[in-house]
């Protein structure tokens, strides 16, 4: 079960992520006009970035699948999107909480990043039902890859289009040099921690799925059991 380096990766994730949250709480200075509430920034923004990158990576892995037609690539693409979706739930909830603290409302349509994320999330929310709705596993893999590629390309386009529409009212424009050094550092550590978390969950999920596949193959060989197993998940079978 412990695939190569999974343990090391998990430990690194915990250390970096806990460290990031600790320095966010105790080291990073209070924001001038947001105060303590700005601390959600170190959770919400890295989550959003990692989740979106995960969707795009899912698309790139799907390209590999269509090229090679090896189902392992479909599994990788599926897992990347699956993890991104889970993190996406956290992005939306923390985003709503941040909106509540900053503007006193749970949702703000003028916030382009939040709105685009919702659109992307709604799109990917149909990924799993689509997989379930296709019986033949090979076709399912192909269609899922087409979906993942189109979705991966849609992510940056959607953000561009929505951002062009709305006025920028984001409380923190990071990367524009406005962010003081310590805040910037804290943000980068949080981002690294979140990326590590994604990597760990990704590896964990892949290892579990592969092991499960081998277990099933073993069972089939031992029991001479050709009956297809009832599907509980939309994950591809290897």
């Amino acid at each position: 079960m412990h695939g190569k380096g999974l343990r090391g990766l998990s430990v690194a994730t915990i250390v970096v992520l806990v460290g990031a949250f600790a320095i966010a709480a105790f080291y990073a200075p209070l924001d001038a006009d947001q105060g303590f509430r700005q601390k959600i920034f170190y959770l919400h923004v890295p989550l959003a970035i990692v989740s979106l990158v995960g969707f795009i990576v899912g698309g790139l892995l799907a390209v590999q699948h269509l090229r090679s037609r090896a189902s392992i690539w479909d599994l990788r693409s599926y897992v990347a999107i699956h993890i991104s979706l889970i993190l996406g739930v956290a992005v939306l909830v923390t985003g709503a909480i941040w909106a509540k603290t900053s503007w006193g409302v749970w949702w703000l349509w003028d916030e382009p990043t939040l709105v685009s994320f919702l659109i992307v999330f709604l799109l990917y929310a149909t990924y799993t039902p689509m997989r379930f709705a296709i019986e033949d596993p090979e076709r399912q893999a192909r269609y899922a890859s087409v979906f993942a590629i189109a979705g991966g390309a849609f992510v940056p386009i959607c953000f561009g289009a929505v951002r062009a529409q709305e006025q920028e009212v984001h409380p923190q424009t990071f990367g524009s040099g406005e962010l003081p050094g310590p805040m910037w550092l804290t943000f980068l550590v949080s981002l690294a921690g979140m990326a590590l978390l994604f990597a760990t969950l990704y590896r964990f999920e892949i290892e579990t799925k592969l092991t499960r596949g081998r277990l099933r193959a073993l069972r089939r060989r031992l029991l001479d059991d050709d009956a297809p197993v009832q599907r509980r998940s939309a994950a591809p079978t290897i």
Partner: protein
Amino acid sequence: MRVLAALLRKELRLELRTLESVPGMILFGVTIFVVFHFGLDRASVEGDLAAGILVVTILFAGMLGLNRLYVADEEQGGFDGFLLAPVDRTWLFVAKAGALFAYLVALELVAVPAFALLLLEPGLGQALPELLLVLALLNAGFAIIAALVGAIAVRTRARDLLGPLIALPLLIPVVIGAARLLEPLLREGGAGGLDATWLAILGLYDLVFGLLSIAVFDPLLED
């Protein structure tokens, strides 16, 4: 081109014979205007509200077309028949998008005048060429996305549900662009001009998704 002509001809002939998509789309579109009238309790609309109603109506009526687009091929062996021919598969995508574009034009030929008659305050005359340009870009975007998503949805269980569910988020940039472009055109008391930025965004979106769809369409046809 010979292939595209053959496919388009088959597509339109089939639609003329069965009348499965266009009449339904038109009726649905006009009905939505009536529903909006009562839902909003407004006798007339203009500006951003008018732009929104028009775009949303075209979108929802178009969904009927999306759902029917590949059904005849799926149920009557049309995919296999096409795949056996020594032709480039991309043409099927182009033909489907083209056919849907035509259906949307047919829809708008009725629905837009009906909109002007039933709800729109300023009338259509004030910026007709601009209006047609925006509608063409809207149709192209819808047709491209629907031709791609329809091919995915038709081979799934619950296709009538999945098609719109996948297509709608993908269409939101098109909705934003078209609505922003239409707003000044439908303003009461003189139409404003077209915003070049939005025109570029909408055109670019159509282009990018058109090329992308062509690139990923082939794997959808294999069995």
